[in-house]
C-alpha cells in the first residue's frame, strides 16, 4: 500500500499529460497484482495464490493453473513476481481477473499442441524443484505432478507408473532425464499396456526399463 501511494504520488506531480492506453493498461495490471501480493515482499506468495485460484475458479493443483505459471515463466513454485505477472497477463491479453478466467480454456488448447506441450512438461518438472533439491524431486511430488500434467491424456500409463513408483525401492527421487523419459515413453510406446513398440535395447532410462519389466511380470 505504501509503495503504490508513493508511486502514484510521483506520477501525479510530474506528468500533467493524460495517461496513454498502454500506461493505463499496465497500471491496471499492477492494480490487480496488488490485490494478491504480499506488501512487504512485493510478491504474490502462497496465500495470495490461494486467493487468486479461488477467484479464477481453479484449484491450485489444476493443470490450468500450472499452464498459467508456464505462461508467466514463474520460477519459484508458490510465488509470482511482478515481472512474471505482467508477462503472463500481457501474453494472454487479459487485464482483469474476469478476462484472465475467460482466457484459460484457450490457453489450455494452445499449450496442448505438441510443440508447446513438451516444453510445458519440462517446465512442470523444473517448477517443482526447490533450493534444497535443485536436481531432483521426491517420488510423492512426482506422482502428484504426473497426475496433474499427464493424467487427462495418458490415464492408464500414469496410473500404472504411479503405482510402480510407489512400490519400487531403487529410486527415492526422479531427475529431469527420467521425467522427460516418461513423456517420450507415453508418446512413442503408443499401445499400452501391450507396449509392442517398446524395445529394452533402446536408451530408456533404467527406471522405465524396470517399470516395463514390472508390468510384464504382472501380466504373466
Amino acid at each position, binding site marked *: 500500500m505504501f509503495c503504490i501511494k508513493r508511486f502514484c504520488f510521483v506520477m501525479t506531480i510530474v506528468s500533467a499529460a493524460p495517461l496513454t492506453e498502454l500506461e493505463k493498461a499496465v497500471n491496471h495490471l499492477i492494480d490487480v497484482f496488488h490485490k494478491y501480493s504480499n506488501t512487504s515482499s512485493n510478491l504474490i506468495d502462497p496465500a495470495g495464490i490461494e486467493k487468486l485460484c479461488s477467484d479464477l475458479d481453479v484449484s491450485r493443483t489444476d493443470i490450468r493453473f500450472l499452464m498459467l505459471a508456464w505462461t508467466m515463466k514463474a520460477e519459484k513454485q508458490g510465488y509470482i513476481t511482478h515481472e512474471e505477472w505482467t508477462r503472463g497477463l500481457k501474453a494472454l491479453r487479459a487485464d482483469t481477473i474476469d478476462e484472465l478466467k475467460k482466457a484459460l480454456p484457450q490457453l489450455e488448447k494452445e499449450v496442448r499442441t505438441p510443440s508447446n506441450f513438451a516444453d510445458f512438461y519440462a517446465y512442470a518438472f523444473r517448477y517443482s524443484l526447490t533450493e534444497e533439491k535443485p*536436481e531432483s524431486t521426491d517420488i510423492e511430488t512426482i506422482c502428484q505432478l504426473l497426475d496433474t500434467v499427464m493424467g487427462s491424456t495418458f490415464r492408464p500409463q500414469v496410473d500404472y507408473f504411479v503405482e510402480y513408483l510407489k512400490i519400487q525401492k531403487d529410486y527415492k527421487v526422479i*531427475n529431469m*532425464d*527420467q521425467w*522427460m*523419459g516418461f513423456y*517420450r515413453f507415453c508418446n512413442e510406446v503408443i499401445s499400452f499396456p501391450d507396449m509392442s513398440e517398446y524395445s529394452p*535395447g*533402446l*536408451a530408456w*532410462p*533404467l527406471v522405465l*526399463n524396470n517399470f516395463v519389466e514390472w508390468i510384464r511380470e504382472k501380466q504373466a
Partner: protein
Amino acid sequence: MYRETIIDFEQGCKCLEAGVSELKRILEEETSETRIDPKQYLELYTTIYNMCIQKHPHDHSQRLYNKYHDIVEHYAKKTVLPCVQQKHDEYLLRELSRRWDHYKVFVNWLSHFFNYLERFFIPQRNYPSLLEVAMKSFRDRVYLEVQVNAKDVVIALIDKEREGAQIDRELVKNVLNVFVQSGMGTIEKYKEDFEMFLLEDTESYYARKASRWIQECSCPEYMIKSEESLRKEKERVIHYLHSSTECKLVEIVEKELLVSVAKHLLEKEHSGCSALLRDDKVDDLSRMYRLYHPIPKGLEPVADAFRIHVAREGNALIKQAQDAAANGSLVEAQVLVGKIIDLHEKYMVYVLDCFKNHTFFHKALKEAFKVFCNKKVGGSSSAELLANFCDSLLKKSGKSDEAIEATVDNVVKLLDYISDNDLFAEFYRKKLARRLLFDHHKVNKEHETIMITKIKRQQGGQYTSKMEGMVTDMQLAKEFQKGFKGSLTAKPGGIDLAVTVLNTGFWPSYKTSTDLNLPREMVECVEAFKSYYGTKTNQRKLRWLYSHGTCHVIGSFDPKPIELVLSTYQAVVLCLFNNTERLTYQEIIEQLNLSHEDLVRVLLSLSCAKYRILNKEPASKSISTTDVFEFNSKFTSTMRRIKVSIPPPPIDERKKVVEDVDQDRRYAIDACIVRIMKSRKVLPHQQLVSQCVEQLSRMFKPDIKMIKKRIEDLITRDYLERDAKNHHIFNYVA
C-alpha cells in the same frame, strides 16, 4: 609297285570290301590268329593309297572317306548291334564287351588301310579323324540302343557285390569304358547315362542300410560298418569306376550313413558319444573323429556332444560340492578346484589325442568349462575358491618347481574360464598380503613369482601390477631394513626393531589402528625409524599398521622365562602389566585406546585360549567389560618359545572384497563410457552398451543395468547428453 593304270572307284571298293569281309571273318572266329595276311594288307593299303593320289578326276579321297564311314556304320549296325541286343543280364554285358573289343580291333586295322587319308586328306579338309568317325558310329548305332539295359545290369551287379558276392570286375570296367568313350572326349555320357543312376541307387541302398543298422547296432559297431562301407566304395572306384565318381560317391555314403543319423548315433544311450567318453573308448572316439572330419560341418554335432558331456560332468562336481556345503561341510568346496583341474586335464587328453587338437574341440571344452566354472558353491564364488586354492598351494612347502609350474598352468587356464577376473585378483591380493606379512618364513619367492608371471602372461601386465608391487615391496623393505640397522648406534628402546614399509597403492586397504598408546620403548622405536626414513626419502607420509606387527616378548614367569611370539596388540596389552599386577577391562581400554572388538580378541587369546598368560576373573569363556585381569606368574610350558596365535578379525572379508570390486567396476565402467564417447562423439545407446561390454570383457562381465545406471549418472554429471532429435543417441559433452 608303281601302277600305271587308274583304279576305278568301284573296282577299288570291291577290293576293299573283300578285305573288310576277311577282317570280319577273322574277328568272328576269335582265334588267337587275329592277324591279317600281310599280302592282303599291303594290297589294300596300296589300293587306297593309289586311289587317293590319282589325278583328278580320279582322285577318290572324298569318296573313300565316305566309304570308310559306310563300312564302320554297317559293321556297327548290322553286326555288332544285333549280337548285343539278343542277350540279357550279364550275358549282355559280356557280348557288349566282346563286340566292343572287336570293334576296336576292326577300326584299328581299318585305320592302317586308310592311313593315307588320315595323314593327308583329313587334316587338309579338317574333317573328323577316322577314329572319331568310328566312335561316333558306334555310339549312334550301338551305344544309344543298349546303354539303358547295360546300365541297369551294371548297377545290379554292383549291388550284388555290395552284398558280398564276387563279380567280374574287369567286365564291368570294360563296359564302363564304353560309356566313357561314347562321350567323345567328354565325360558327359558316362555321367548322364550311368553315374547319375549309380548315385541314386547308392543313395537308396545306404539309406536302407543306415536305418537298419542304426536300430540294430551300437554306436561303435555302426561306425565300424560305416568305415568299412566307405573303404569298399573307394576300392570300387579304383577297380572299375571312373575316378571322377569317387568324391560324389563318398559324399553320398557319408550323407546317408553319417550325416542324416548323426544326432541319433551320437546320442545313443549306452554307446553314444557320452558313453564312449565315460568309458574312455579312445579307439572308437578316434574313429568318430576320422569319420566326421572330412564331412563339411560334420564335426559340429560331435563337438556339441563332447561339450554337453563335459558340462554335465562339471556340473555334477559342482552340485556335489554345493550339496555338501548346504549340509555344513566346507571340505568339498576346498577340494573342488583340484577336482576341476583334474577334469580339465582328463578331457584335454581327448582333445589332443582322439580329436587331433582340432579347434572345435578346444572351443567345446572351453565353453563347457565356462558353463560350470562360474557357479557359486556355498556362498563362495569360483573366483574366491580359486584364490583359496592358490593360497594353499603356495603355502605348501616341499613342492618342486616343476610341480608348481604344472599346477599353476592349470590354475591360469581355469582363470580364463572365470568371467569375474577382477574378483579373483582382489581375493588373490588379500591372500598374498597375508602370506607375505604373516607367513613370510613360509613364503617361497620363486613360486610366488612363477604364479604371478604366468597370470601376467595371460591377463596382461595391468592385471598383475599390484601383485608384483607387493612382492617387490617386501624385497625393498628388507634392503631398507638393512640400511636402517646399519645406521643405528644403539637399539632404540632396547628393542630389536624391524620395519616393513609398504606402498599403499599396491596393498589391500587396511583399517588404520586407532591412536594406539604404545609403551615408551616402542615409541622410541617408532621415532627412530621415522627420523631415519625422513633422511632417506622425500615428503612421504608413514601410516603405522600396528594391527599387523609381530612382537617377541620375554615373559619372566616364576618357573622359567619363556619367549612369546605375539601380535603387537597382544604385546602392548601385556606390557601394561609391567607396571601393575591387576587391571580391569575398563582400565586397559582407556590406557590403550584400542577398539572394543580388537581388545576382546586380544584378551581372549591371552586368557581363555590355549595359553593362559593372564588370569581372568571371572574365569568364564568370554570377555565382558567388567572382567579383571591378572598376570599369571605361574604360567609355564615345556617349550622355550611359543606362538600365541590370535584369530583374524571376523569382518566379513568376502563381503568387503565384493564391495571393493563392485566399486572398482563402477569406476571402470564410467571410465570406459567416457573413453568411448570421447572418441566417437555421437553414439546410439545400443552400440555404446555393446562396446562397453566388449572392452570390459577381459576383466569382468558387466551387468547391463549397471552400465545404464552409470550412463544416467554421467548424464547428470554433464559428461553426456541425450541427442535433442533422437533421444536414443548420446552426444559427448566436452
